[in-house]
């Protein structure tokens, strides 16, 4: 009973604190942009001041807001995806991008685009099929190897990833489709296509998934202890694993078809949050949603504002931060 209250207390603390950080990130992101309008004027509009500048108002509510909300959704999804994979595969370095799941959904998405399907549901569905195919491939490749299992999983992921990028480049060279002209930015993770409609559709797909995963957070705690223990405690291990993996693939492929390949978010955020609040998934799931959202908002803000002219793909920033973290964690886990 005491343990229960302490979890609720910690959960509340995490939610309040991270919501504060997310709100701060949102404010900064909404009030900065390429038009180099003053931050003060932007803040005045966000807080609903009258006689505000109508142009800046359009920029904030119609251009920046959908993009910032897309960043929150995608960041939350990828960071949650990392958390789920790490728990289910019991591998601290598992992550949708590193395992090639994102790459697989990118292949699906590109085939969808080349077939001339609409972004939703056509391209998203193709991306989902692609991600499921790579997921099955990786699980088959890494199963049965008991020794070095951890490395086998990562190596399979690296190889699947390399294969996926080769297939992507193959498809891109085959076509001269004008619809693929932004492909390089998209492959590196890009949020610039955000508008209110796409962000709304994505929210409708993702938020129910978040709730279901939160519902399974205790189950993830049990799975982390070990499959046998979880089984003896009455957990339908197989069902839970399949539901969570499929759900995560669905979420990841939905974000990939809108924002391309953003790497390492699912690695950086869960590890950071676990370091602060420990391994309890009932706390980590909401923490990953809020923290991951805030993290990608900040990364995208940097991508939008660092270059003098134009912008860079947000995936450049997430990889610049994430790849060194991966190497650090790999070294630590070897010890």
């Amino acid at each position, binding site marked *: 009973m005491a343990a229960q209250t302490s979890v609720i207390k910690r959960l509340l603390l995490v939610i309040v604190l991270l919501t504060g950080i997310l709100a701060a990130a949102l404010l900064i992101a909404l009030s900065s942009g*390429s*038009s180099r309008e003053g931050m003060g004027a932007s803040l005045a509009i966000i807080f609903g001041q009258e006689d505000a500048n109508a142009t800046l108002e*359009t920029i904030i509510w119609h251009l920046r807001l959908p993009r910032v909300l897309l960043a929150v959704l995608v960041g939350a999804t990828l960071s949650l995806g990392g958390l789920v994979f790490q728990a289910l595969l019991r591998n601290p370095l598992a992550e949708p991008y590193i395992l090639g799941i994102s790459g697989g959904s990118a292949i699906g998405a590109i085939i969808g685009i080349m077939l001339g399907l609409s972004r939703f549901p056509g391209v998203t569905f193709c991306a989902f099929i692609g991600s499921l195919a790579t997921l099955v491939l990786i699980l088959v490749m890494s199963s049965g190897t008991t020794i070095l299992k951890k490395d086998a999983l990562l190596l399979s992921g690296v190889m699947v990833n390399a294969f996926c990028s080769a297939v992507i480049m193959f498809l891109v060279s085959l076509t001269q489709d004008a619809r693929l002209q*932004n492909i390089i*930015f998209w492959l590196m993770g890009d949020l610039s296509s955000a508008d209110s409609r796409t962000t709304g559709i994505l929210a409708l797909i993702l938020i129910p998934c978040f709730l279901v995963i939160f519902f399974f957070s205790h189950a993830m705690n049990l799975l982390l202890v070990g499959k046998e223990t979880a089984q003896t405690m009455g957990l339908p291990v197989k069902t839970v694993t399949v539901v969570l993996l499929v759900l995560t693939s669905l979420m990841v492929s939905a974000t990939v078809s809108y924002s391309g390949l953003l790497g390492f978010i699912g690695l950086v955020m869960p590890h950071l949050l676990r370091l602060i609040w420990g391994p309890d998934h009932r706390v980590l799931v909401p923490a990953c949603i809020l923290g991951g959202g805030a993290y990608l908002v900040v990364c995208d803000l940097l991508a939008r504002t660092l270059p003098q*002219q*134009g912008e860079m793909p947000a995936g450049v920033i997430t990889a610049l931060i994430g790849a060194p973290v991966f190497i650090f964690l790999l070294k630590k886990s070897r010890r």
Partner: protein
Amino acid sequence: MIPPSVKTISFWLVVVFFALFLLSRADAKTVVDQMGRRMTVPDAPERIVALAPSITEIIFALGQQDRLKGVTTYSNYPPAALTLPKVGTYIRLDLERIVALNPDLCIATKDGNPKSAADRLTELNIPVYAVNPRDIETVAQAVIEIGGLLNAEEKARDLAEQMHARVQRVKTQVAKTDHRPLVFFQIGVSPIVSIGTDTFINELIVLAGGENIAAGSTAYPRFSREQVLALAPEVIIISSMTRGASFEQIKAEWQSWPKIPAVQNHRIDIVDSDLFDRPSPRLVEALELLVKLIHPELFGNPQ
């Protein structure tokens, strides 16, 4: 002098008010662009953003640059365009900068600009008029259309007529000879890329009395060096599209194949890619340059 009656004064007042009413109604017009989209544009747009370098060139050629408030990153001609605010490249438009310029009209190209960007600007109540210049004829048509939007019809007609006249002059020059040299037009260095039939460079080559050896249904076909060798081009023209690549080096790579007639006869030339990859009124300049490179004998230069 009879003082004007109250009746006359009130009559004229009504006329003046009616005229003012008409004027205020007439500050916007409805047009249909080359994508078939109907839109309302200001009668005299004052804040225009050009979404492609070719549009910038057309607006300058029409002498309407005072209304131009924003251009894309690589809009470098005429040099005055360099000082205008930049709104991203034509493929990756920076919507925030466009909106911040508060334009009353954006002019786009149908094939160059992504449709999604045009749609979003339209959603934000910024009219986006798309022209569709694909060859010299449609460039002239785009000039007329933009002239109509900017109330510069006369200037636009002059410009279009000049273009037609210059094309006609080249046609007359070329008609003097039956020889149609095989031309290889290289727009990419590594890999070697040329241009197919459905491009305006192909049109320029044909008009200038050459035969494009890369003609075919692929718009931008890739070539290996041995394919080019087998096709035996008599003239090789390289456009400087690859930024930073040294022409001397590219030329040297061809010169190690003396079997190619163009190499034997020293007929390798480089041209300014801005002149050849933009559907702007300067295409006729490109054409005049091309005819001199393909048929130097018509201009008194021995081959």
